[in-house]
Each structure stands twice: as C-alpha cells, then as structure tokens.
C-alpha cells in the first residue's frame, strides 16, 4: 500500500494543534504585508502521526538491518546519544546566551575539540562545519588563506586523485581554486610519477583520501605527502574514512596539514536520512590561526574547587565563519557521548574490528566476486558486480536483489575507477553472524545471476515499491505537489 501525500489527506477546516488565546491587546497589522492564503495542509494530530509512522515503515535504516554502504560508515547509532542531545540544558540553550551561562555546552565543545585533536594528531580543531563537504570547503579555504598570508598568490591548483569522492573537486571549485585530477596506479595507490609531474609553484595542495575510496591505505603515503610539501603545497585529508585509523595512525603524524572528520560517520551520530552531519576540521600548528571561529578556549584556568572558565574566541587570521552560530551542537553532544564511552581503549578497537569485518567479507567473497585490488584492505573494499558469464547482469541488479534478502545494498558505481563497483563497508558494529548471512546472500545472488538473471534484473521483488523510473523523474519534473491542481490520486 502506498501512502497518500500529506496534501491529499488534508481536509479544509481540520485542525492539528490548539494554541493559547491572545492575552494582550491586539495590534494593528500592515495590510499590504499580510498574506491572503496560507496554503498549508489541514490535518488532525492523528492524521499526521499515522502518515509519518506509515512513511517511516517504508524506510530501511541501520536499526532495521545491515547497511554496508561503502564510504558512509553506517555503524550503529547508540540510543544514549539521542537521549543526551535531548537533555533540556542542551536542546533548549540559546546559542547567543552569555558564555558564562553556557559553560556546559562550551565545556563539551572544548573536550570534543581536544579529543578530535588527539585522535587526529592536530593542533587546532573547529567544530563549525556542518558536514564533510563543508569541512572540505573550509579546509581548502584555509589552505588558500595560508598561501595568501605568505604572499604566495599564484598557488591556485589542487591535485585530486581520480578515486576521490565527488565532493573533493566540487569543494575545490567552490573555493575558487582549480582541480587537477591524478590517476591511480595498478595497486590502487596514487600514481607517484603522475603526481611528480604536477608538483610545482602553482600547487596549493593535494586532497588525499586515506584510506582511499578503494579501502586501501596509500602505500606510499609518506612519499606523497613529502612530495607535496617539498613543492610548497599543503595536504588536505578527507577524513571520511577515519574509522579505519582511530588509534592506528594519526593523520597529523603523517604530515597531513588539515583534515575534516565526519562525526556522522566515524563518531556514530545518525545520518538522519541525509543529515544533519557534522564535519569538524583539524589542522596542524601553522594553520591554527586560519580556522573559522568561534572556537572554544579556556579563558581562566581551573582553580581549586572552581572549574575553568570556557569562552569563545576567533582565530587571528580566520577565514571567517562558515555557518551561523557554533555548528551542529546537537551532533557534537552525540559524538562526545560516543567518544566518552569508547574512551582511550575504544578507539583502536573500533578500527580493528572495522578492518577485520571488511577483510573477513572480502575473503569470503573474493572467489566469486572479482576484487580488483585484492590485498588487505582497511575498513571497506570494492568488488565488481559483474561476470562475463552473466553479461546482462550489472552491479545495480545485484544491489536491488540484495533488498529481497533483507539487506541494504552496498554503494554502487563508486569509486568511478572500478567498473561496476560494489563498495562494501560493514563497520565494526556488525557481528560475524550478520556478515555470514550477508555473504551467503551475495553468493546465492551470484548463482542466481547466472542461472536466472531476470530475478536480478527485475529485482527488488519484496519491497514496498518496485524499481523506479528515474529517467521519467528527470524528464517530467514533478518536484512539489500543487494541491489545487491535483486530481485526487489518493487511492
């Protein structure tokens, strides 16, 4: 059963909330600025609840089942995070209230900054960016500002490997710099020779995803970084894959100058069906002054019995704020809760089990699915969803068929450098039992692909709706429901 649109269940005159009566004399209104119609739907509370409850049931989330979406780190979102973020003192604090009246929030942000610095090996962190891509833009702007501050205005190019996430080049363009793409070599690493060709005085920096989007740790990472540094460039780290590195290696120790974290991947804040995320940026010493402000600092040290006084400061040569207020504080609370529970011991354990799970699946599947770079991977790996014996079956078909087995499909067709890519990231929160069941399903599907390809091509069969016509959606654009013109489609 499909669910009608909220406008289709609207009835003129129906009321969803009651509000208090006006308890002050009514003021006159500027008639020319008052709207006539307010074309919002009209529903009772019960209608709204049923509608969205039913809609939710058409969705698949981590709490419904395994969600091995590569590059997205769909780990379990601890329930206590949700409770913490909803504590009255957090959820109902005004961002502009006096810092002295906000010591709880500021202390939390301060510790989160400190912990992120510690796991990343950085000297400064700004919590302001709203998501990974936002962190990228912030980081590239920092790199740009750094060069400019040194009078080095000709550094306008950013090198980006071809395996990078699309946000990397897009962020670079937004920052006003120019993208140069670098190919990967046959082991999935950055092609060092190619890289060398480009190094020079116009290079502002390199954007490095490490582990890269093949799930592989750059084997010549030190050479790559040294190369960039030696030509005067800086290295940006795309920290989307930090889950593999916690307690294993600190990007700052590798010489990465600036990196964004994804609290909504590595630090367990929920993805929310597409956000909100949080993309703090960490930097080495020479970039601290360029961070977007405000940043939390200790204004007065702790004195016996007296806790320290926290306050907001703006770095000297800051690129400026990238967002209103202080960033996604609600996400910070969740990440803080998670890091505090995991603690020192937990960090390495997260990486270890994330890497173990990915390798376990790789090994279980590699005889049947081609794994183009088949060596020990980090937190994820990429395999090909295609066989010569089943030429009309594609990665997409496998993805859709997995739904019939009760699993969320892996990322597909990314990274672009692997044909028919299926990018699998199990995360550390999944048990062997789940991985085994998933592997069995994929092995079964591989058989089906050869024996009964239509089963895959017409998949999914067991979902609330079948394969959707994406071409039609883009051709006959219907992007919002216009309640008045609608003929009652509600049945």
């Amino acid at each position, binding site marked *: 059963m499909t669910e009608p649109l909220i406008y289709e269940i609207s009835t003129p005159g129906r009321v969803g909330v009651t509000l208090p009566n006006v308890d002050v004399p009514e003021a006159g209104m500027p008639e020319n600025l008052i709207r006539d119609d307010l074309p919002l739907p009209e529903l009772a509370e019960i209608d709204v609840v049923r509608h969205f*409850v039913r809609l939710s049931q058409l969705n698949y989330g981590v709490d419904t089942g395994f969600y091995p979406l590569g590059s997205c780190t769909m780990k379990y979102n601890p329930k206590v995070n949700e409770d913490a973020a909803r504590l009255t003192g957090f959820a109902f604090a005004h961002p502009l209230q006096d810092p002295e009246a906000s010591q709880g929030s500021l202390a939390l942000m301060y510790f989160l900054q400190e912990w992120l610095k510690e796991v990343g090996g950085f000297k400064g962190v700004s919590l302001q960016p*709203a998501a990974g891509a936002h962190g990228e833009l912030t980081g590239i702007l920092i790199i740009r500002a750094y060069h400019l501050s040194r009078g080095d205005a000709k550094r306008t190019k950013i090198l980006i490997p071809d395996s990078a*996430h699309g*946000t990397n080049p897009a962020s670079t363009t937004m920052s006003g710099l120019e993208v140069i793409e670098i190919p990967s070599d046959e082991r999935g690493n950055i092609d060092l020779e190619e890289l060398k060709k480009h190094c020079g005085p116009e290079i502002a920096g390199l954007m490095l995803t490490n582990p890269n989007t093949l799930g592989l740790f750059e084997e010549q990472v030190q050479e790559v970084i040294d190369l960039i540094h030696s030509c005067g460039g800086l290295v940006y780290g795309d920290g989307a894959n930090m889950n593999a590195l916690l307690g294993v290696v600190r990007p700052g120790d590798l010489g990465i100058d600036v990196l964004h974290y994804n609290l909504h991947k590595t630090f367990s804040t929920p993805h*929310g069906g*597409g956000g909100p995320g949080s993309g703090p940026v960490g930097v080495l010493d020479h970039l601290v002054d360029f961070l977007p402000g405000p940043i939390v600092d200790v204004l007065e040290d702790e004195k016996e019995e007296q806790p320290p006084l926290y306050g907001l400061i703006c770095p000297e040569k800051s690129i400026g704020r*990238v967002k209103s207020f202080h960033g996604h504080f609600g996400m910070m609370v969740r990440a803080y809760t998670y890091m505090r*529970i995991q603690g020192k011991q937990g960090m390495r354990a997260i990486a270890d089990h994330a890497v173990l799970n990915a390798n376990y699946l790789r090994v279980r599947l590699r005889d049947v699915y081609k794994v183009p770079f088949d060596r020990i991977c980090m937190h994820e790996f990429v395999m090909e969803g295609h066989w010569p014996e089943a030429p009309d079956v594609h990665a997409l078909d496998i993805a859709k068929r997995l739904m019939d087995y009760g699993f969320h499909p892996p990322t597909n067709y990314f990274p672009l450098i692997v044909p028919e890519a299926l990018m699998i990231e199990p995360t550390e929160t999944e048990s062997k039992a789940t991985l085994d069941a998933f592997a069995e399903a994929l092995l079964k599907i591989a058989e089906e692909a050869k024996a009964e390809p239509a089963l895959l091509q017409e998949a999914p069969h067991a979902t609330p709706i079948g394969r959707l016509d994406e071409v039609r959606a883009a051709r006959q654009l219907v992007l919002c429901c216009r309640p008045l013109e609608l003929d009652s489609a509600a049945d």
Partner: protein
Amino acid sequence: MAYIPHTESERQEMLAEVGVKHFDELYGAIPADVRFPDLDLPEAASEMEVFAELTALSEANLDVIHTTNFLGAGAYHHYIPSVVDHILRRNEFYTAYTPYQPEISQGTLQAMFEYQSLMCQLTGMEVSNASHYDGATALAEAVILALNQHRMKRKKVLLSATIHPHAREVVRTYTQGMGLEIKGDEDCNVGPDQLIDLIDETTTLVAVQYPDFLGHIHDYTALGAAAQAAGALFCVVANPFALGMLKPPGEFGADVVVGDGQSLGIPMSFGGPSVGIFTTKEKYVRKMAGRLVGETVDKDGKRGFVLTLTPREQHIRRDKATSNICTNQGLMALASAVYLSVMGKTGLRKAAELAYHKAHYAAERIDTLEGFSLWNEGAFFHEFVISCPKPVSEINAHLLEYDILGGYDLGQDYPELKDHMLIAVTEMITQEEIEDLVLALEEVGHD
C-alpha cells in the same frame, strides 16, 4: 567494548579466515614510526556513568525552559508540538542514509517531497531543494547560483545590512576566492530604497532579509523589480515562521528565497542543527544546488519518489557541480515538514499572530519606560529594537536575576546601535512575563 559485538572466539576465527594472527598484522601498509599512537584520552566509561556526567554538564547551562526568553537574533524559542520529536525518533527515519536506494527509502523520499512542497507553499515559490545546512549557507548558495546564472560575468553582490550578520559573514567566507564586490551592508540605516540606488549592470544578486535582523517588515516589491530590471537576481532571506502571516516573498517577485528553518519545529540546541531553506523559480532549477526529490512511477505504474536531477551534483559532475553539498539536513527538514503538517493552515497563522501581538504589546509597554524607547519606525514582526539607558550587558545581568534572558546587544554588530537591544517575543511569552520584563527594566532605568 561498547557497540562491538565480537566475541573472543569469533575474533580468532575471523582473523584466521583473513589469514592473520593478530590485529597488528592488518596494518602493514602504515608507516611503522607513527603506527599505534598512545592516545591521551579519558578511560572508557559505561553508559551509566557518561549519561550522569552529561546530565550534569547540561545543567551547567542556562536554558529557555527555566528562564523567560527574549533573546532571538536568528534563533527562536517557539512551541514545538510534541508529535514532531516523536516522529524524528522513528528509527527507520533517523538511522537511514541519504535515500540513494529508492525502493527501500520511500519514507524519507516522500517526506522530502512533502517538505519541498510545503516550502514552496510557504514561500510562494515554484521549486525547493531538499535543504541546505542553514539559512546562512543557503544565502551563500544563492549568491553562487546568481554568479553561475551570470556565468561569473557579474561580480557585485548587494547585501542589505539588516541581513543577519552571520549570514553576511558566511557569504564573505564562501566567496573569498571569487573576487566579488560585496556592498550594501555598510550601515544599518540603508533601507530598500537606498539599495535600489546601488544596483547596476554588474550586480548579480540583491539580497534582503524579511523580517529584517532588526525586526522590520518592508514591502520589497519595488526593490525586487529594480533588481530584475537591471538583470540581477533578487533574493529574500525569510523567517519561515513569519510567513505564517506575512505576504510570501514570491509575491515580491523573489527569484530565490532562503531562510533558516529552525523556527519550524526545531529546538535551538545551542545553535544547531537547523535546516537551510532554499526555494526558487522553476527556470533556475538546474542551477540550484542541493538534492531534489521528484515524483515518478515504478515498473507497475505505482507512484514513487526518487532523487532527481542528480547530474547537477558533485557525485556526478564533480568539479562542475552546482555545489559541493552532499549530506544536508534531512532529519531537520523532516522536522519542519511534520511541524507544518500539524500546525497547518490555521495553526501557523495563529502562532505567528500571537507572536506579532505580544511583541507589539511588549514594545509599546517598554516604550513608555523612562530611559527606554522603541527604535523601530514602521512595521515590525516579532522582534524590535529598544534604545537603552545603559549598556545592554548590564541590563541583561540585571534581568537574569529575575530569570529573564534579555535581548541581543546590537552594538556588537552595528556600532551605530550601541546600547540598543534587540528583543524577540514569541508565542511562548505570556502577558504576565511581559509585565515582569517591564518591571525589571523599569528598575534598571531608576538605578
């Protein structure tokens, strides 16, 4: 180890299957000298202990439940019907990723389609994206849309001084590498009419706020027409809550409407997350940044929803994308959709009117106080400026003794408004609380 399900025997079995004896062997590719740092972090702790700690931290904050709040300035304490959070807590919604697989994501997709529809209705525009990070970044994206629309050939942006200072700052941060000329916000007394004078053929976008940062509501029809006459785009930064009663920017001919959706069912949470609204005209849809949900059918003709026009986006177009935005504010957009659904046609209008009347009552009362006067001339919505006999920080310290959270100190952003306080009054404030504020302010005047 919290949230890691492995038992010791499974661990061993799996390591063996992978062909290693110990975890350490998995990291051969990592330079040995920096491998396995000893992290200076607190010891692991139990949920029980950590939650107690967090409770204590949260209570070290002042909150607007236990104070009477007249602080707004871009973040507002509105009523959030209980249903909103009940829906956000549905596991299937909040633990899902961006709906790349429509067959098992119809919940998110349809809700986003509804969000888009609601935003179009509210702002009076034709298309909406599925959200930006917040109102400030949405404005920056509007600037970029205009720049792209003019193929980077026009480089002047006019921002009214009464756009939220954070939003103006974000535009400047975003565009620092683009060589723009950003004008118009030198003085908060520059009104819409003076902005018209600044428009020329190099102007790519003219942006104003509605209600503006100082509470005013202006008819922007003439400004919009002037901008468009010069070939510039006209952008209105709107408070969507106010649109419950105010003429929608679409009626001023806006090309783009942006705004922060926090006032639509989202708690302030010390500043975030909220949701950035972005609506525009159909003709700009391919230049618009951010995700879009469109209607289509499945193979049996059943209606369904998918992400559409994705070629605009970074994961396909990479450096040619309209924006880098990927993760947006999905769950917060859902919150707004639930909020607007339950408030509905009459509820939102009534709430907006309540705020309007209460704000005007408060303004009038304060205006009668010795030493205080209402600074605003002309119409305002639910925020207004009062000139004060003392520094705002002193007054606020006094108000806090009565558990009143005073207004915003405008001197921070507008030197010309030293000792001026921006007061917000929402539907949450009662007459009695207004009288308490008046009494407390009166005392300050007499000190």
